[in-house]
């Protein structure tokens, strides 16, 4: 992998390609609207009257203390759980089934299937959509080299390092080709360099082919670089403490962007909000 920030055209096209996915049609650019959302596991209130909106093709970052309910919120958005009260809309979909249809979710744990090779894990969504195995492997495999996984196509998950597993899981989510992406700490296990490269790749891909994205991360810099806006969540039960606009979302030159004075200022503000949220509990 190289540090140059040019979008690799082939991959960008690949990513932009609308497959034969039934969910890929019509719902492109679904906006997310969450109103008065509450959720709890038994007695444990995780989310309390949370409001959030993401415009179609918008990218929203979520940061918040560990255990505040970020992963739960993503599961709610993705249609894997139902709220206690409140409403979630993805484009025109309100029911969990419609949300599932529109949203690709990358869970925090990679959850690679141990009986499938790396490439078959990455190709799962294509296979589920009915693409033939050879074709699915080809499509999913086209990004392996780019993601630093070249040569590990047929490795089993147990033979991959933590960061490699995470990248395979990321790839698996991308190839689902959904209008909405819900990413739960997609780059948490990556070293600074690989992580920056992945961020740049994602930024480029989103520039070429905009999607609606909700990105959970514990890296404020990552959030502010990749997202249009960043919501800082309070400790459990989660609600939005502050919502910040990023100064230069997905700038072509990442290095310049994240060292710009404006960027640093916003970052400090976000950190302060986070700190306050944490100490409020």
């Amino acid at each position, binding site marked *: 992998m190289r540090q140059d920030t040019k979008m690799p055209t082939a991959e960008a096209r690949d990513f932009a390609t609308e497959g034969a996915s039934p969910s890929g049609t019509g719902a492109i650019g679904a906006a997310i609207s969450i109103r008065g959302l509450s959720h709890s596991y038994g007695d444990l209130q995780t989310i309390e009257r949370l409001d959030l909106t993401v415009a179609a093709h918008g990218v929203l970052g979520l940061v918040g203390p560990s255990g505040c309910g970020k992963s739960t919120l993503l599961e709610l958005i993705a249609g894997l759980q139902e709220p206690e009260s409140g409403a979630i809309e993805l484009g025109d979909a309100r029911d969990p089934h419609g949300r*599932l249809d529109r949203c690709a979710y990358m869970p925090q*744990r990679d959850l690679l299937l141990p009986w499938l090779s790396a490439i078959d894990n990455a190709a799962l969504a294509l*296979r*589920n959509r009915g693409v033939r195995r050879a074709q699915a492997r080809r499509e999913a495999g086209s990004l392996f080299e780019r993601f630093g996984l070249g040569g590990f196509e047929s490795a089993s998950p147990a033979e991959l390092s933590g960061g490699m597993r995470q990248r395979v899981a990321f790839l698996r989510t991308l190839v689902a080709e959904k209008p909405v992406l819900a990413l739960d700490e997609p780059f948490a296990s990556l070293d600074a360099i690989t992580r920056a490269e992945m961020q740049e790749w994602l930024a480029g891909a989103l520039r070429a082919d905009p999607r609606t994205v909700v990105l959970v991360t514990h890296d404020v810099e990552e959030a502010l670089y990749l997202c249009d806006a960043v919501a800082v969540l309070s400790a459990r039960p989660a609600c939005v403490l502050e919502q910040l606009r990023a100064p230069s979302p997905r700038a072509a030159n990442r290095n310049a962007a994240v060292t710009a004075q404006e960027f640093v200022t916003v970052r400090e503000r976000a950190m302060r909000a986070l700190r306050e949220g944490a100490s409020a509990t």
Partner: protein
Amino acid sequence: MKRWLLPTLLLAVLIGAWQIAASTGAIAEALHIESFLVPSPAEIAESLWQSRSLLAENAWVTVREVLFGFGCALVAGLGFAVAMHLFETLRLAFQPLIVASQTIPIFVIAPILVVWLGFGIGPTLAIIALICFFPITVNTLDGLGSVDVEATKMMRTLDASRRQILWRVEVPAALPYAFSGAKIAVAVAVIGAVFGELAASGAGLGRLIFQDMAQLQTARAFAAVVVLSAIAIGFFGLIALAERRVVTWR
């Protein structure tokens, strides 16, 4: 090959001890080892050699029965397990029936089977299949339920249909269970064959063992049991081998 040395040695020691016990008056008397009750290894070996063609012929009959019966049970057991896994109602309704099916003694159903399936291999196959069906079904059903719910969630976000979740997640997760069930089934299948042959068949090792016991030819009966065991161990080993080749991820 050293790992085979000790087991072989153990077997040799066991057989040797048995032979000594059988041929030493006092021990034989204390243990009631009398050749009409428990023949000595030497007698069994002799019988094994002398009746080799008879044993081989009957063994072939039994092997075929086991293969077919087990095959049917495998297909039916896996199918039923999947169906019961997919439909809770089916499981609630059929699980008790399937347990009940295991409790019907052979001499109760043998006449019915003969009436329905005629003489010959049919009833035996049915009995073997019935016996094998149970461990395969119970284990596979439990295996299908052993899946991490998170993995299922992940699949759902990837647009997987119920069928795809089944095939790509639940079935692989159930495989180790199914293999354990199949190993149990194939070992008890030979016993099913024995009783099946008693009920309605003119050939096979079970038949031979029964006749030899009736004629008090215990040595040959034991020789037939040895062949029967060898068959079961062979099938068990084959399935264990298949398991190792299929379940590669652990």
